[in-house]
């Protein structure tokens, strides 16, 4: 039997997230329970990677866990505030890519090829030579390159492969061996599962291995590529998660919105929602005490109109002829 990968978020983070690691932090449905644990364990020197890095990035920057970011969108930099200040002062080094670029770079990392061409960015100011090694950056000449295609002479931009040291992701379900299944739109997560050296997945449900093997079309990564599985209902809260719960916009505005407003506001959030609880189940407990069951229930998915019929994968055991 393969070894079980099932463990707590504390153990998974302690064992598989090292100071200085580059970390894929998710796009829109974020493994917030794992991000909180990284903050709780005071990891440092991390690089945050994702097509668009939302409040999970802000959290890692404000906590001093991450000092580099590679992304197409840094939500914390949208308005004046501490994240912009950190970028100006050099405390946070950044490389601006795009959603397509990060997705393709993860794909290249997963495929084991050194770079991948794109026809995006052509004609834009991103490619101006004076911006390649900009004072706020951390990749220098390795950010990207341009060339003419050897086959048709057309210009292309070469994006380097991204191989994050670790990826933290949330999924609908997995078995104890780390075979992970997801459904719904994937953002850039699909290739992060395959690009990262170490994959930590939190899941809404742990299922028996037979459930996975009976419906393998939903599997996005097999267990042999996964370092740790953490059973974590509401692990993506306050982001939404397909088939389980919607974004908790009220919490995002009133509570998580504080993290980008300044050090004091961030520390208040950290004290209450990260350091003040031991793990995600205590976090949910605190949420229920503060806002009540109905606040959580309001976000839950309700049944859609037409359930998908079962897909059958088995056939008659014997063929009615001989070769």
């Amino acid at each position: 039997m393969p070894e079980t990968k099932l463990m707590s978020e504390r153990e998974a983070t302690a064992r598989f997230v090292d100071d200085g690691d580059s970390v894929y932090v998710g796009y829109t449905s974020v493994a917030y329970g794992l991000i909180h644990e990284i903050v709780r364990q005071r990891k440092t020197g991390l690089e945050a990677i994702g097509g668009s890095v939302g409040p999970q990035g802000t959290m890692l920057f404000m906590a001093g866990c991450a000092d580099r970011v590679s992304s197409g969108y840094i939500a914390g930099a949208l308005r004046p505030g501490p994240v912009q200040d950190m970028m100006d002062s050099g405390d946070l080094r950044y490389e601006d890519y795009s959603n397509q670029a990060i997705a393709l770079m993860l794909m290249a990392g997963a495929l084991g090829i050194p770079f991948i061409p794109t026809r995006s960015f052509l004609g834009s100011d991103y490619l101006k030579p004076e911006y390649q090694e900009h004072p706020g950056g951390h990749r220098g000449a390795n950010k990207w390159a341009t060339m003419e295609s050897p086959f048709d002479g057309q210009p292309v931009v070469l994006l380097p492969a991204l191989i994050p040291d670790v990826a933290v992701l949330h999924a609908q379900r997995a078995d104890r061996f780390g075979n992970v299944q997801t459904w719904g739109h994937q953002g850039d997560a699909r290739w992060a599962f395959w690009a990262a050296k170490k994959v930590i997945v939190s899941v809404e449900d742990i299922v028996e291995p037979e459930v996975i093997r009976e419906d393998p079309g939903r599997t996005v990564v097999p267990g042999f590529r996964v370092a740790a599985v953490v059973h974590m209902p509401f692990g993506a809260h306050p982001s939404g998660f397909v088939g389980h719960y919607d974004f908790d916009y009220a919490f995002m505005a009133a509570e998580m919105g504080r993290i980008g407003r300044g050090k004091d506001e961030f520390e208040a959030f950290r004290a209450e929602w990260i350091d003040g609880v031991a793990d995600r189940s205590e976090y949910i407990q605190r949420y229920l005490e503060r806002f009540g069951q109905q606040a959580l229930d309001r976000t839950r998915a309700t049944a859609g109109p037409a359930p998908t019929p079962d897909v059958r994968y088995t056939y008659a055991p014997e063929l009615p002829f001989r070769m």
Partner: protein
Amino acid sequence: MSEETETIPGADYTLAEMMCVVAARELPRSGVAMLGMGLPVLSGTLAKLAYDSDLRICTEVGAFDWQPWPEVPRAPIGIHDLILNHGSVMVTDMVDALGTLLMGGNADVGLLGAAQIDRFGNLNTLVMGDYRAPERRLGGTGGNTEIACLAKQVVSIMPQERRRFVDRVDFNTSPGYIDGPGARRRAGLQPQGPNRVVSTFGVFSFDTPDGGDTDSCEMVLEAVFPNLDPDVVQAETGWPLKVAETVREVEPPTNDELTLIRRLDPYHFYLTPGRY
């Protein structure tokens, strides 16, 4: 100015509502549309519900051909709203959306917003001032760059303010006609750049009848909103604006369009005073 709350005297709608309605009208009635972050999602949803539209709306998170059901409670909040998983013909990932669909040549039109636009329709989503010592950072481009580079047509939505309609964008994240005729082709892009811009004052086309290789490729004022003096458009534009020989007046929004756009934004996520 704060056009988002401003109304035309006697009108029962705001200029921002009008902008979103007119952007929806400017979208083609068929083909594949990639909706960018922000107001494009609201306008794209309105286009599906208000008109008998065969347009296939997609977002970069990997939701393709989303059909909002008639009683849908809201336009998607952002390109990643989970309601896109209900009613799309395919949900997949970003390599498919921005690679296979967009770069593969399957997106007929992109609908985009940004912080700045210039006379050639270039957009800026990244930074105010010099990139190496910025006056102000913005969030970043998301998928805006590739949509501007790779969609076959582009419609932009941009509030008409002098600080947004600038002579030259501070940082060209998303190429329009770059610096004039032929520039896109020389950069390795298809020659056709942006087709339309819809602002809080009116509608613009681009002076390049053959689609990017000849004429000035500059923005041209084509139409203004009802009862609006075309001269105010120049006042809120940072370069000497080209104006069509005859400037049309846009039809005011219908009751249906107004009712829908208000119903689709119940939390004022899109049309909040002070932001777009």
